[in-house]
């Protein structure tokens, strides 16, 4: 075990954990004031639920021994992590770090992938239904896909087992362009279709972001955490991590410029929402590529990702699906750009040592990258659609129409986000047994005061 590598992976894991609250702000700032808590709860709910499932069977499903010819790892093998917990002699390692550190590092990837999806269904999802979706989707989609992409286990003879996309097909995805972003983006599109458009979609001016500084805060925390996401994926504090680090700085920097340039030319104004979005688009795009392309090419990738995503977020109005906070436009499109760009610009001297079209590698790598991307995209989209659809048809995924009008915060969570002193009136009493029994679970209660009809 190497303490330096372990220090970096533990720090990186914490950084990636922070990304989900960061995402809660990035997304939450973009909703209306009356839906911000629900949006944040979908992220916090993902941390809570996926965190527990990961320890129970998620890690084992993603990184256990192949079942069904590699469709997933054996969920029971490391159930509850029970057999990898030794911290003394004979502590199991992954490379130079304790396996349990690797478990931690991978856990937060599962969490944020689920949280990312929630951006598509702002302002209209039941929280219970969301949790149910999250639990099923992460089990049936994320855990297997992580097995396909991130599992580099070998058998005793050193032959790859598991990871048909990553080590089988040889798709290059350093930190999750396919397993995280395309995966989440495709599921988001499916949910946007299942839940349908918000009331007033494309018309109601109240749909503008209610707190842009929160969006900036979210973008800042995401960028910060993403250094753990990408450079931590080297699983050590070494040259490869450093290489990934600098790409994780420069690609989003360029993508910010790219997005702002499109805005300036098209709308006349570079916006702060554009800067935050551009940074995230660049981070998404560099995720799979950060070990495969040089910083100069990262700048090119960033510019492209920023500009294309800036255009892509307008698609939902044209095509008529309400991907409310642009998970498709940013994560699916950005993830595709980054994953495919490797096929073009991968540099044989970069750590990934792959050769893309521009360096004389022909179209082979590009083909693989496309294949891996599409496999994940389709699998995730179809499964997410089915899961979402069944939930919608059974317990209902979307809140009733008047709950949407009242705002999901008040109707689903019985809370409102802000009270700057402008709210007046109302009455208060601590809940005690009696009162609880009486009022049940109704959140829209009749006024407790007697009224006389006029």
């Amino acid at each position: 075990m190497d303490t330096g590598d372990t220090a970096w992976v533990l720090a990186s894991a914490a950084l990636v954990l922070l990304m989900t609250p960061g995402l809660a702000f990035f997304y939450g700032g973009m909703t209306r004031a009356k839906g911000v808590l629900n949006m944040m709860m979908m992220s916090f709910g993902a941390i809570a639920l996926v965190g527990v499932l990961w320890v129970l069977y998620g890690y084992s499903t993603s990184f256990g021994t192949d079942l069904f010819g590699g469709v997933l790892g054996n969920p029971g093998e490391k159930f509850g992590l029970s057999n990898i917990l030794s911290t003394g002699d004979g502590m199991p390692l992954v490379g130079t770090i304790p396996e349990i550190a690797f478990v931690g590092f991978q856990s937060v990837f599962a969490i944020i992938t689920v949280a990312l999806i929630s951006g598509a269904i702002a302002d209209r999802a039941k929280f219970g239904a969301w949790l149910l979706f999250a639990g099923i989707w992460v089990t049936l989609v994320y855990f297997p896909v992580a097995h396909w992409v991130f599992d580099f286990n070998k058998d005793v003879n050193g032959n790859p087992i598991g990871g048909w996309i990553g080590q089988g097909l040889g798709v290059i995805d350093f930190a999750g362009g396919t397993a995280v972003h395309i995966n989440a983006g495709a599921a988001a599109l499916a949910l946007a279709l299942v839940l349908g458009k918000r009331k007033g979609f494309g018309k109601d001016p109240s749909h503008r972001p209610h707190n842009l500084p929160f969006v900036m805060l979210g973008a800042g925390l995401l960028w910060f955490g993403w250094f753990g996401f990408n450079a931590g994926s080297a699983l050590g504090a070494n040259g490869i991590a450093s290489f990934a680090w600098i790409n994780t700085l420069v690609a989003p920097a360029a993508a910010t410029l790219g997005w702002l340039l499109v805005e300036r030319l098209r709308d006349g104004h570079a916006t702060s929402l554009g800067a935050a979005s551009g940074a995230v688009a660049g981070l998404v795009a560099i995720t799979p590529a950060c070990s495969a392309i040089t910083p100069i090419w990262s700048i090119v990738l960033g510019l492209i990702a920023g500009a294309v995503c800036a255009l892509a977020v307008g698609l939902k109005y044209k095509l008529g699906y309400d991907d409310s906070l642009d998970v498709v436009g940013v994560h699916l499109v950005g993830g595709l750009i980054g994953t495919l760009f490797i096929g073009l610009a991968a540099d044989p001297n970069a750590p990934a040592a792959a050769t893309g079209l521009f360096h004389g590698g022909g179209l082979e790598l590009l083909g693989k990258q496309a294949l891996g991307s599409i496999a994940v995209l389709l699998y995730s989209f179809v499964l997410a659609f089915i899961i979402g659809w069944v939930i919608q048809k059974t317990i209902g995924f979307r809140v009733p129409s008047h709950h949407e009008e009242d705002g999901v915060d008040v109707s689903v969570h019985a809370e409102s986000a802000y009270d700057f002193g402008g709210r007046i009136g109302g009455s208060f009493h601590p809940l005690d047994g009696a009162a609880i029994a009486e009022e049940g679970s109704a959140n829209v209660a009749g006024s407790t005061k007697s009224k006389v009809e006029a």
Partner: protein
Amino acid sequence: MKLITAIIRPEKLDDVRGGLESYGVQGLTVSGAHGYGRQRGHTEVYRGAEYTVDLHPKVRIEVLATEDQVDDIVDVIISSSNTGRAGDGKVWTVDVYEAVRVRTGERGAAAV
């Protein structure tokens, strides 16, 4: 000259404004308000303590109008903001002694 004040549901503001514009009203003043009446409140819960909120967000619209337009305007407001559910609001009119346009100092009908 009269001043028409309407307390309506916030989500009806756009409809009312549209209706008034079509009718020919060229200006109005809007402000936020909270109303209390027959409409039922909702309950929020924070760490096991319950807050009953029975003041509802409303929007106040004020329109200065000449005598001949008042009835029509009131009708336009009512028809465009009515939902039939408790909480739709009130409209009232009062006599205005004098109205002035600040920009020009014009008074009376020319001011609105």
